[in-house]
């Protein structure tokens, strides 16, 4: 019986890790559909960003209350996962409380810390559910979250609560069995569990068999839940708990105001002004198209951004266009980019040729009107706690519209004409540029 459980555990563990790895490999493949961009310079600055932005959650602390609650869930998640070492060991080798033998003096402290964190995680998740579903905090309650995104958010919070409760209930049953002198619990004395022992009054009337069953069921449900959640998060917005780290590392180090250069256009202009500097024909093929129409025209970092987004909506709440009722929502730009990448992913999985699917990020997912509303103010970039840059995508889509489709609002067409003919966005001749000097002060 014991060995059967161990084998079953091993099979489930390997299966869960296999499917998770397979999914992550697909995500990596989808991210690398993006164009190459070298973001490996200045490693010290990049590690500093990982420490401050991802690990330290610096930007979250613009709102300290929410930041603190988020920190509880995050710390709980990371620290309680140390317990996973024990669970995996016990599962594979049929031991009971493996770490107790390894760390006899610290074990009680360790598990009690986990229990306190577990209680705090439950507390924070309940508040998050209330903010989302009862208080209807504006950024968590907008049209773009209707359907799957808001369901996804609630599933994540509920699963976290259930997992923590299973962990506490398992400990409660264990310590009751210890008190009743039942083996193997009695000879694995853990000391008092301060949080889970509060559940004892609820379980006092349980028979020994029920307690044994409760402890085992909670143990199994907890680990099955964790492994299922591991796979679930790779399909959900919760992926940010993993990708926030690489995303902080690869975040741009240049001033936010600098827009990415297009060396191909730079050279083309240079050769127009200085034909003698042009290389011999055909040695320098110009890119097939300018700007971005689909996700594979974006940089791989734009796609990493999209998969790192947890749809918190701080960007959209800060966006001047969105606040004044325009269609643009930077969060929706990121969600649309991920959705299109996921669509391609499912076509790759079904071995359907996606490049000829007649669908694209621009038009099918993001409209002209949305990207036309952007003031390039960088509020969305500034607001994002995990260093996502929606503006970069907006500019690339605008480049496609102007340079490939010659599609621009009438007023911009006039502006381009003025800049070309008068070297100023307005219709004034260059001679008039110094008219003001002829006036008195």
């Amino acid at each position, binding site marked *: 019986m014991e060995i059967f459980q161990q084998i079953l555990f091993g099979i489930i563990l390997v299966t869960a890790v296999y499917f998770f790895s397979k999914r992550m490999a697909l995500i990596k493949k989808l991210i690398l559909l993006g164009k190459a961009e070298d973001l490996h310079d200045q490693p010290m600055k990049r590690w500093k960003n990982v420490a401050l932005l991802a690990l330290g959650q610096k930007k979250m602390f613009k709102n300290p209350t929410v930041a603190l609650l988020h920190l509880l869930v995050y710390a709980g998640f990371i620290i309680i996962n140390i317990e996973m070492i024990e669970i995996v060991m016990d599962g594979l080798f049929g031991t009971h409380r493996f770490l107790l033998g390894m760390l006899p003096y610290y074990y009680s402290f360790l598990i009690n810390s986990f229990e306190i964190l577990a209680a705090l995680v439950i507390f924070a998740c309940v508040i998050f559910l209330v903010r989302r579903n009862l208080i209807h905090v504006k950024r968590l309650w907008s049209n773009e979250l209707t359907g799957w995104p808001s369901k996804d958010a609630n599933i994540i919070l509920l699963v976290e609560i259930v997992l923590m409760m299973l962990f506490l209930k398992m400990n409660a049953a264990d310590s009751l069995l210890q008190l009743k002198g039942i083996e193997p619990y009695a000879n694995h004395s853990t000391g008092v569990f301060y949080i889970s022992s509060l559940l004892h009054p609820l379980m006092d009337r349980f028979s020994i068999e029920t307690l044994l069953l409760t402890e085992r069921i909670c143990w199994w449900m907890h680990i099955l839940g964790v492994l299922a959640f591991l796979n679930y998060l790779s399909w959900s917005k919760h992926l940010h708990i993993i990708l926030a780290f690489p995303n902080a590392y690869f975040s741009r180090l240049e001033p936010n105001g600098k827009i990415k250069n297009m060396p191909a256009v730079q050279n083309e202009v240079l050769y127009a002004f200085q034909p003698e500097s042009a290389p011999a024909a055909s040695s320098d093929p110009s890119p097939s198209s300018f700007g971005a129409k689909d996700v594979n025209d974006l940089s791989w970092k734009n796609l990493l951004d999209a998969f790192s987004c947890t749809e918190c909506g701080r960007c959209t709440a800060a966006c*001047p266009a969105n606040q004044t009722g325009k269609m643009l929502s930077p969060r929706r730009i990121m969600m649309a980019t991920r959705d299109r990448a996921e669509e391609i992913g499912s076509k790759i999985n079904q071995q359907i040729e996606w490049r000829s699917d007649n669908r694209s990020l621009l038009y099918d997912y993001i409209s002209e009107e949305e990207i*036309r509303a952007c003031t390039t103010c960088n509020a969305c970039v500034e607001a994002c706690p995990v260093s996502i840059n929606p503006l970069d995508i907006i*500019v690339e889509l605008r480049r496609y519209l102007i340079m490939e489709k010659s599609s621009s609002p009438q007023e911009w067409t006039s502006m381009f004409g003025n*800049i070309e003919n008068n070297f100023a966005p307005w219709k004034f001749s260059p001679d008039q540029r110094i008219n003001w000097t002829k006036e008195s002060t």
Partner: protein
Amino acid sequence: MKVPIWSEEVSKGNQPEILFWVGCAGSFDARAQSITKAFITILNKVGISYAILGTEEMCTGDPARRAGNEFQFQMMAYQNIQLLNGYQVKKIVTACPHCFNTLKNEYPELGGHFEVIHHSTMLQQMIDEGKIVLNENGAFKGKKITFHDSCYLGRSNQIYDAPRSVIEALDASLVEMKRCKSNGLCCGAGGAQMFKEEEKGNNRINLERTSDVLETGASVVASACPFCNTMLTDGIKLNEKQEEIKVLDIAELIAQSI
């Protein structure tokens, strides 16, 4: 007014130390021209060696690039960089955060390497060094002034303190809007929006920002960008508050206090 032109200075055998990049707004827009004149007044008074490019100056390409027209941006950048390098310009000051950002951050990788400084920083330096001496009982002493952060100065280039210390040097009382510094709300002009109608919505961005301004109860809203100035001036007018609150550039505040 007396404004030295770079090409004329060169023909006289002078090499000015600083180029004042006026920008298209500062050159052509009637309201922004007074900002330019105010800054010239200060430069002349302090006695700094400077010149403007005059009719040789061209749009930096900022609105074209942000609208998506990279070809046009590169054309403008190429021509400007050729001219600036030809004149061996070392240091540039400008009162426009958009020109500032493009000259400072986007021209270097295209071959234009200059020390670029925004006029708010230069004003702060000149005050700190005692080159600008403000009147004891200036027009703004004790006045409630709020400062509107330009996106291209603030979030884009992390310049938040320089314009504020200029205001504080006037002995004015600086009041902040609820959304300020890195959380500042855009005026609505950036990203080439200045040159087109806003997309469909339920409010105009400059009106949204004007309500932040009015909430402070300040009698002056200071800006450090000609486009923000235009947007806020329109917003204040639409609220019919132009008698109670003035929109002034920090250069105008200083020019009126020396």
